[in-house]
């Protein structure tokens, strides 16, 4: 199954048969004071610099979050979408829970965007899926619902099933749903990592949809986070995950992903691995 995303000039395919897709997470003002302050003034310079750096480091798609307290999110997200589309050729992933902001950004965007995200909550499904269908965008479906975060892989699979079904009801092709099995931090529950990995396997087997993951939460509250995140990416990739929202500017993560692509048979003659190695040595 192939999920196609595109900007005006570039297409990216999310699929187990294609190189892993890195969705760069850095254009998000949460915990980033300088970005937040610049966005509050509608100054996109830091965001554009983040975009360039992430793409140079291997990002294929850019997550764009314009959640600045007190700001006009629809206007800001649309402005960011336009500015980014002029500057970089990577497709964009609009990160908002505000339907008005998503609408503004999707309407302005020339290409096929990814929406981050809907959950299995009725309110979210009813707000996000019609937008995705109308603007022919793909959607990340996070496996929580009105009762919260399901504790077991089976319960999470049920939410994924519901999201896929509801998307079909809106006429969306199944490949335009990418399921996020939800990584909670292992610092609060040491079984959290395993539940997510087991969910990935179930969703892959039963629904066959592509899997993505917000892959940086898992290590929150722990030391040596990069090593945990890198291991988690590798474990997820082994279970069929083919995209992740992560930070490619962390060299260990980008390297782990490239190594996984090679080991999963997605890097013919190891050409990308070798090229990245040479680039690093310079």
């Amino acid at each position, binding site marked *: 199954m192939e999920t196609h995303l595109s900007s005006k000039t570039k297409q990216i395919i999310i699929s187990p048969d294609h190189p892993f897709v890195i969705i760069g997470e850095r254009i998000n003002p949460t915990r980033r004071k300088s970005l937040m302050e610049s966005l509050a003034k509608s100054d996109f310079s830091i965001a554009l610099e983040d975009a360039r750096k992430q793409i140079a480091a291997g990002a294929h798609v850019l997550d764009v979050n314009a959640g600045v307290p007190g700001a006009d999110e629809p206007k800001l997200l649309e402005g960011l979408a336009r500015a980014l589309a002029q500057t970089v050729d990577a497709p964009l992933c609009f990160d908002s829970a505000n339907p008005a902001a998503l609408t503004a950004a999707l309407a302005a965007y020339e290409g096929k965007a990814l929406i981050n995200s809907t959950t299995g909550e009725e309110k979210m499904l009813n707000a996000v899926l019609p937008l995705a269908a109308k603007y022919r965008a793909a959607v990340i479906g996070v496996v929580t619902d009105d009762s919260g975060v399901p504790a077991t892989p089976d319960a999470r699979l049920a939410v994924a099933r519901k999201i896929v079904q509801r998307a079909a009801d809106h006429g969306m092709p199944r490949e335009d749903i990418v399921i996020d099995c939800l990584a909670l931090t292992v610092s609060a529950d040491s079984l959290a990592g395993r539940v997510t990995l087991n969910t990935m396997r179930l969703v892959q087997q039963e629904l066959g949809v592509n899997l993505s993951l917000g892959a940086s939460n898992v290590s929150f509250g*722990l030391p040596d986070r990069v090593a945990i995140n890198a291991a988690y990416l590798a474990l997820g990739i082994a279970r069929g995950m083919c995209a992740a929202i992560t930070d490619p500017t962390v060299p260990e993560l980008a390297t782990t992903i490239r190594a996984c692509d090679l080991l999963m048979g997605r890097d013919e003659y190891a050409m990308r691995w070798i090229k990245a190695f040479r680039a690093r040595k310079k």
Partner: protein
Amino acid sequence: MALLDDLRQGVIDGNAPGTTSLVKQALSEGTPAEKILNDGLISAMAEVGRLFEAGEYFVPEMLVAARAMKGGLELLRPALAAANVQAIGKVVIGTVQGDLHDIGKNLVAIMLEGAGFEIVDLGSDVSPQKFVDAVAAHKPQLVGMSALLTTTMPKMKTTLEALNAAGVRGNVKVMIGGAPVTEKYAMDIGADFYAPDASSAATRAKAAVQGR
């Protein structure tokens, strides 16, 4: 007292069985419950908070320390009640509507409990109405709100407005925190104070109820 030092260390180390047996022993030796609470449990959690703030302790270590503290506190409760020892204040706490993140909020609740507060934890994804109802029902001195997302942070303002509209805002001090939250945002929406982390939340909450 050596026994209370051991108890304090047991909590800091997250040794739950050790903590309960030392609390039992201290009680059976006639140590006043309030002294066990203050010099053992509260003092230990203050140290755990300090270690966390300094980056020496990590989230799981705080959680196991909290588990030990809670076990000890359960044992101590009847004795505290018998001696008529009051909590230093009551806090209603929750993560705002639409937001499922509860770790930060849980850590704050732990530190507040460890500082001697009584906690009413409303959990995560708490609607403004639920905050209003809890304030009316429990009559706390403090309300704590957490939000981890830029997209859910505006619910703090909505919740404050609901507290105002219900006429219960004047009776409580409101503290807020969470990754996207800033001191400025707290002031902008009319909260009483902001806390950047769990340990300072406890310090500031204590100062707030003691009028400092």
